[in-house]
């Protein structure tokens, strides 16, 4: 399937509007669209909506032998997929330039910035380490996939809990979530990407471009930053030449946006924690089921202490 191409009059209209500092959806130059972060039932399952762009991320872990060059470190594996659902232009199993760019940027943002402590993922040095796999699925493409993907990935990593392990010599016992509470990953900081689109030879810039704006852009600047104002990665593409103070101005804007987004993520994590810890309170209540089977009446409770009450049938 092919995506509908952009017509010349649409292109001219968008560029004219940008010259007059107007955007299609009425936002200001530095405004982000509405961000909505929701977590799923599993630990490590996160869905992010950036306006109409929708991204879904799942983090999973398994025990594997480590790399020979780094026997005491865990492994992080990132995989971003452009689902054919997101846009008619995306075809399954097709290595497009966009896919490679997004994957590489996500890796640089999360792996090279060392935001996850990989040493803590080691179980038995040289033999067993945790491999944390981050799968990001793009579900709807309305521009700015990079930001949405980085928010989804870091939220899912913060949300993820790996199973508890016990080591006795060389024997490793992995406890199920029912036996022992799973442990969160140790995350030093939360790097988040902020995208700046440049138009008309770098004279105008827009934060968080939507899909139409992305089609007419000249170049893209992606800055990955954390709330401590540390830049984790910068990538400039499109061949436009930027002045030094342009880049510095962008980094200042990025630091403001990143602190807002980090607060949003923390609030969402806090809400999810509250919802999860309310549930065990309900489970402590004794749930009694009365089962009538043939001649006897059995009462079986759902509480941890297995008390079985035996009722006697009254003579009729």
């Amino acid at each position, binding site marked *: 399937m092919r995506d509908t191409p952009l017509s010349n009059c649409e292109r001219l209209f968008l560029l004219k509007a940008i010259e007059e500092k107007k955007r299609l959806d009425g936002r200001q130059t530095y405004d982000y669209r509405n961000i909505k972060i929701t977590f799923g039932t599993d630990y490590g399952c996160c869905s992010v909506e950036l306006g109409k762009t929708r991204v879904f991320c799942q983090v999973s872990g398994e025990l594997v032998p480590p790399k020979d060059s780094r026997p005491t470190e865990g492994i992080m594996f990132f995989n971003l997929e452009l689902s054919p659902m*997101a846009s008619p232009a995306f075809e399954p199993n097709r290595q497009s330039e966009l896919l490679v760019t997004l994957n590489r940027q996500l890796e640089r943002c999360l792996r090279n910035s060392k935001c996850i402590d990989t040493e803590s993922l080691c179980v038995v040095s040289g033999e067993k380490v945790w491999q944390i796999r981050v799968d990001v699925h793009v*579900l709807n493409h309305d521009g700015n996939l990079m930001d949405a993907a980085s928010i989804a990935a870091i939220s899912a990593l913060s949300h993820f809990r790996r199973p508890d392990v016990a080591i006795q010599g060389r024997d490793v016992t992995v406890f199920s979530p029912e036996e022992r509470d799973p442990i969160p990953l140790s995350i030093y900081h939360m790097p988040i990407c902020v995208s700046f689109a440049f138009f008309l030879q770098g004279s105008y810039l827009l934060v968080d471009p939507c899909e139409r704006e992305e089609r007419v852009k000249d170049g893209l600047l992606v800055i990955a930053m954390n709330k401590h104002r540390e830049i984790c990665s910068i990538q400039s593409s499109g061949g436009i030449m930027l002045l030094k103070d342009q880049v510095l101005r962008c980094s200042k804007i990025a630091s403001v946006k990143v602190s807002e987004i980090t607060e949003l993520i923390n609030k969402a994590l806090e809400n999810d924690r509250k919802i999860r810890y309310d549930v065990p309170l309900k489970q402590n209540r004794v749930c009694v089921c009365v089962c009538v089977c043939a001649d006897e009446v059995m009462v079986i409770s759902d509480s941890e202490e297995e008390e079985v009450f035996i009722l006697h049938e009254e003579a009729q």
Partner: protein
Amino acid sequence: MTLMSATKGLCARTMMELDQSYSVLREYGSEQSLLSKPDGSSTFVQGDTSILAGVYGPAEVKVSKEIYDRATVEVLIQPKMGLPGVRERAREQCVRETCEAALLLTLHPRSSVTVILQVIHDDGSLLSCCLNAACMALMDAGLPMSHLFCSVTCAISKEGQIIIDPTARQEKECPALLTFAIDSAECNVLMSSTTGSFSVQELQQCIAISQKASEQIFQFYRDSVKRRYSKIK
């Protein structure tokens, strides 16, 4: 917790002996038109199992895949973790054959209808949830169909009783698992996918229970469409 589910099973068997019409589906829900790019989209939730479906169609088709007198149906199932494998291909075939039976493909020759399904959470009855989500997405896209379809999964436990819409834990414990796709016009079986061994009587019982349960789901389809279009005036 295992004690609890065993108790439910016991209750079920006694209830079945007392009352033949025992069919309890988990809580289900759906939402349509949530994605802006696809022509039709929907989510379908059964208990904890959740699937997101997107439909593109009728659209351009590759010359190698085109059929001269009807539309080509393509189904893609994307698992939550890892790359799609053989299991997904098998499920895709089941969904594709059901969609081909329901859609009026001859109205759009040399076109393609693509159904993409994303697994959001798998807690049992995955194939059923995929089919239900696909049907709601096809409705949302406005593609012409001769009838709607829905799907129900039955599991036959070791003791021999039939559990409808099983959870992942129940599916693991049961030796036989049957999934049926049922059409809305005459309640016929469009597709069946089974694993494990079971007797002919058990198969017929499962089909009967699935047809009974499908009435609830079809009523849900009607209600949700009615609610949706009554808002647009």
